[in-house]
């Protein structure tokens, strides 16, 4: 892909120096054994605990609706813009369209991200769209399009889930009609260990096999988005290598984790409503 040389006038291809530093980084195998021995994770969480969540609405003043989510170090801003006519479209569509853009900020990861969307971001955008399409009452705004932009400020794992959860809040903040509250949770698997809401290190631990033998070498990432009151899965994505029984088990775990997030979102939205009522009462 051609680079925008007017904006970024550096070399085309650069590498993080850490690759060449002669430091003794522990192998995946060691990290895994350590985790297994300790019985808890680096931030003192249990394997099936979600990180603490911080939510705030109305963070971007130019946008119709916006939300900010923090899962410890993972920080994502989502903004939603007014419906507008679908560009370059001839035929009339009975249902409204959703446009999603998922972007890592250049400084959000260990390696610098480029301004252009890469394949991973394209894929995440598509997954996000898939999750939100069945959440929004699209028949309410035929022939119109709602734009949703998610920007990851700091990537410490489970960013896609954070973005989808925040997008749900931002959409309700924007007043877009929705069927239900949407929550999303990520889960990582390595051998027998299941890690809920993995951070970036745990995520890369789960993305590849640590041992060569093919038996009992489940590994992978599962992302799920659930509409809780309707008990419907609006999006499901898995990568890696996971057996059917394991997958069965994870879906149940994820369902519970998703429903645990709902009260937090309700609280955040209620807070926003009270704040709006107060300010309008004063004015």
């Amino acid at each position, binding site marked *: 892909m051609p680079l925008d040389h007017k904006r970024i006038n550096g070399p085309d291809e650069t590498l993080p120096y850490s690759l060449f530093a002669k430091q003794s980084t522990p192998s995946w195998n060691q990290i895994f054994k350590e985790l297994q021995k300790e019985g808890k994770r680096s931030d003192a969480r249990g394997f099936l605990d979600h990180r603490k969540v911080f939510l705030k609405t109305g963070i971007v003043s130019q946008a119709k609706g916006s939300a900010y989510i923090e899962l410890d170090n993972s920080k994502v801003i989502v903004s939603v813009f007014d419906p507008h006519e679908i560009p370059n479209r001839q035929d009339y569509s009975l249902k409204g369209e959703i446009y999603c853009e998922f972007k890592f900020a250049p400084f959000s990861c260990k390696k610098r991200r480029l301004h252009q969307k890469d394949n991973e971001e394209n894929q995440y955008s598509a997954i996000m769209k898939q999750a939100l399409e069945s959440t929004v009452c699209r028949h309410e705004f035929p022939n119109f399009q709602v734009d949703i932009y998610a920007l990851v400020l700091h990537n410490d794992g489970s960013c896609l889930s954070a973005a989808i959860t925040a997008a749900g809040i931002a959409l309700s903040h924007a007043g877009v009609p929705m069927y239900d509250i949407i929550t999303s949770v990520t889960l990582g698997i390595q051998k027998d260990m299941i890690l809920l809401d993995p951070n970036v290190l745990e995520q890369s631990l789960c993305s590849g096999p640590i041992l060569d033998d093919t038996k009992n070498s489940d590994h992978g990432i599962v992302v799920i988005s659930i509409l809780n009151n309707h*008990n*419907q899965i609006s999006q499901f994505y898995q990568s890696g290598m996971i057996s*059917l029984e394991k997958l069965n088990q994870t879906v149940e775990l994820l369902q519970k984790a998703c429903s645990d997030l709902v009260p937090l979102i309700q609280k955040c939205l209620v807070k926003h409503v009270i704040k709006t009522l107060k300010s309008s009462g004063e004015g």
Partner: protein
Amino acid sequence: MSLCEAEKTFVLHGVEENFRLDGREREDYRPMELETDIVLHAFGSARLRLANTDVLVAVKIEIDVPFPERSKEGKLEFFVDCSANATPDFEGRGGEDLAVEIANTLSSAYRSKHAFDLTKLCILKGKKCWKVYVDILLLECGGNLFDAVSLAVKAALWNTQVPKVHGVNIDGNNIELNVSEELYDCDRLDVKNAPVMVTVCKIGEKCIVDPSVAEEQCSVGSIVVAVSGDKFSTVLQTGTGSLHPATLMESLKLGHRVAQRLDEALWATLRQIKPGQDVGFLK
């Protein structure tokens, strides 16, 4: 193709009765034709025709430098081209979204080491590796693209012949590869565990595999599962609808079962292929 409500009801009733439009049962596939060695310029190629879906896959190999963060691995890249021959909607850049979706799903399914071992494509650690380009050309769309593409890709990779490297001469920074001159002195790629994808479509209350274009229109949601060996390497939800967790598990089970049957059938077919058979579009 767009169906009216009455037509959709007709399809739905057929699915309920386990007797679909073309007389198939819910778990049946349409007839397939597979040919290999069809593109002369490629190292391996295959053409798969699944009823009206026509996919041509060619594999090209080039020498490249491995990624510094994964110095022991070769590279595998998928490129999908939606030919306008398939439908006028693909003219210009019209097919790009679909193309990117298929390519991303494929690379996600092949990412795990147990699905496709990239370390075998490495020639000299950190210096030289094979880069495998898998180019997929969609010539006609008759429904169920994912399944057809994954089978054709697997067949093409099976057919691929990687030239043998006899030795490496290192002279300072210059690296010279001593590639075998013999035309038939080649290595085959190991595709034993290469994933096979199955699209499971939910129509009404029932799940079906291998949907035709009409059936795709009737479905509210579908699940694409990529199965490698007896494990899932990727699961992706497509379509605009949402699914109940029970339906999800049911379709995962169905996809798992069908994918293994499909894989067996593919291997049986590949074993039957003899070199020098008359292939092509003239048949």
